[in-house]
C-alpha cells in the first residue's frame, strides 16, 4: 500500500521533472528556438546557427556573472525569471504535449493555462519596471501595453474551438478536434491565435517591446547571466506550448507524436515566414491591430459560428 503510493509519487515526479514536462520540455524549447533561427536564416539566404546554438547560449549565460543593479528590489529581480519559467512549466501539465494526454486535467483548465502562459509577459513587465533604467521602463510599458492588447483576442480565438467542442477542458477539446480540422471552419480564429502567439512572444513584427534599435533590449536590458538565461528558457517553453495549443485546436489534433512534431513545426514555419516578411510595428500600431482588427475578426468568426449553429439545428 505504502510502496504503491511512493511508486505513484516517483512516477509523477519523473513525469514533472524529466518527461514529458521539465527537462524534456526545456530541451524541446531550445530545439524549437534553433528551428526558428535556422528557418529565418534560410529565408534570409544565410546558413544560420548550428544545432547546439541555443544550448551554448544558455550555458554561457548561466556561467556568466550576475549583477543586481542598484536601487532594485533584489528579491523581485532574482525571483521574477523563476516565476515566469514556473508559469510555463505548470501550464505544460494541462497541455497535450508531444502526443501524450495532459498529466492533469479539470473542467476549465483552458482558462488557467492561458493565464499561466501570460505570466511570462507579466513577469517581463514587472522585471522591466523594477529597474531604474529608462530603456527597461519603456520596454516594460510596451510589454504590458501589448499584453493588454493581444490577450483578449488570443483568449477569444482559443475559445472558438472550446465552443465548438462544448467544453472548457483542453483534453476534451483535443479529443473533439482529433477528427475535425477547425482551421477550415474557423479560419479567422486560427489567424488571430497565431498572431496572438507572436504578440505574446514579442516576435517581429510585434517586437516593439524589445526593439533593439531603439530601446536597447527592452525590459531585459539590465538582466544578464542566470536571469536572462531563465527568461530565454521560459520564452522557449511558452513558444512550444502555444504552438501545441493552436495545433491541437485548429490543425486536427496532436495525439500522434509524429503528427505533433509535424504540425507544430509547420505552424512554426508560418510564424517564421511572417517574421521574415514584416517590419516592426510601432506600439500604437500593434495595439490598433489587435483592438480594431483582431477582436473584430474573432467576433465575426463567433457570429458566423452561432448563425451556422442556428441554421443547422
Amino acid at each position, binding site marked *: 500500500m505504502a510502496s504503491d503510493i511512493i511508486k505513484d509519487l516517483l512516477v509523477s515526479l519523473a513525469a514533472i521533472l524529466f518527461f514529458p514536462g521539465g527537462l524534456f520540455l526545456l530541451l524541446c524549447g531550445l530545439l524549437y528556438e534553433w528551428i526558428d*533561427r535556422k528557418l529565418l*536564416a534560410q529565408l*534570409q*539566404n*544565410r*546558413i*544560420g*546557427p*548550428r544545432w*547546439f*546554438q541555443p544550448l*551554448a*547560449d544558455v*550555458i*554561457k549565460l548561466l*556561467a*556568466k*556573472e*550576475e*549583477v543586481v543593479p542598484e536601487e532594485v528590489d533584489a528579491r523581485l529581480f532574482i525571483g521574477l525569471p523563476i516565476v515566469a519559467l514556473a508559469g510555463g512549466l505548470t501550464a505544460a501539465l494541462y497541455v497535450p504535449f508531444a502526443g501524450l494526454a495532459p498529466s492533469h486535467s479539470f473542467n476549465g483548465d483552458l482558462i488557467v493555462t492561458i493565464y499561466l502562459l501570460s505570466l511570462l509577459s507579466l513577469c517581463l513587465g514587472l522585471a522591466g519596471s523594477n529597474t531604474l533604467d529608462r*530603456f527597461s521602463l519603456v520596454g516594460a510599458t510596451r510589454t504590458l501595453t501589448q499584453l493588454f492588447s493581444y490577450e483578449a483576442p488570443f483568449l477569444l480565438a482559443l475559445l472558438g474551438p472550446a465552443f465548438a467542442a462544448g467544453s472548457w477542458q483542453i483534453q476534451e477539446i483535443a479529443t473533439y478536434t482529433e477528427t475535425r480540422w477547425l482551421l477550415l471552419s474557423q479560419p479567422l480564429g486560427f489567424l488571430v491565435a497565431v498572431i496572438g502567439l507572436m504578440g505574446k512572444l514579442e516576435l517581429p513584427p510585434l517586437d516593439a517591446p524589445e526593439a*533593439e*534599435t531603439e530601446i*536597447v*533590449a527592452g525590459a*531585459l*536590458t*539590465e*538582466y*544578464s*547571466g542566470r536571469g*536572462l538565461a531563465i527568461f530565454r528558457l521560459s520564452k522557449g517553453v511558452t513558444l512550444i506550448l502555444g504552438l501545441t495549443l493552436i495545433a491541437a485546436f485548429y490543425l486536427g489534433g496532436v495525439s500522434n507524436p509524429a503528427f505533433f512534431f509535424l504540425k507544430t513545426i509547420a505552424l512554426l514555419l508560418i510564424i517564421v515566414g511572417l517574421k521574415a516578411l514584416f517590419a516592426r510595428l510601432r506600439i500604437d500600431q500593434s495595439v490598433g491591430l489587435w483592438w480594431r482588427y483582431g477582436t473584430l475578426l474573432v467576433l465575426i468568426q463567433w457570429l458566423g459560428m452561432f448563425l451556422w449553429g442556428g441554421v443547422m439545428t
Partner: protein
Amino acid sequence: MKPTKNRHPDRLAGLKTWARINSPWVLHFNSGSCNGCDIEILATLTPRYDLERFGIKLQGSPRHADVLLCTGAVTRQARSRLLRIYSQMHEPKFVVAIGSCALSGGVFQGCYNVLGGIEKVIPVDAYVPGCPPRPEAIIDGVVKLLSSLKAPQGGDGTAAHASEMVEKLVVEHEHR
C-alpha cells in the same frame, strides 16, 4: 575545501569554455572613429558573412554582451563613455580593438584630442589591424580571441586582471 565539493572541475570548466567559445555576443562601440571600421563591422554582421554560423550575435545592451568591438583612437570625450560601457559589461568579458586607430591612434597619433588607442583606456584581448580591416580580418580577429580562450587560464585570468585595472582607472577618472 572538501575534495567532494566539485568532482569534475575540469569537465565543468571545459563545458563553460565550450559555451563561451560557441556563443560570443558582441557589442559595438565607436570611440571616435571615422566610421570606416564601423561600416566594416556592420558589413561583417550582414547575411553575406553570416556570423550567426559561429553563434556571434550583435547585442544592444552591454549587460548581455561578452565581446566589446571597439573602433577609433579614443577621443578625450569618448574616454569616460568607453570606461563606463566596459564596466557595465559582466564578467567574463573581452575587448577587440579594430582598425589602425584603435591599435595605435593611426593617423591621429599625437593629436591633442585623442589618447591614441583602446589599450590606453581598457585592456585589449585581440587586435585587428587595417584601415579599415576587411570583414574577413575582423572574423579572423574574433576567432583568434576565441581560440585563445582554449589555452589554460586564458579567459578568467585576464578578465580578473582587467577588472582590477578598470577599477583603478575609474577611481583615477573620478579624481580628475
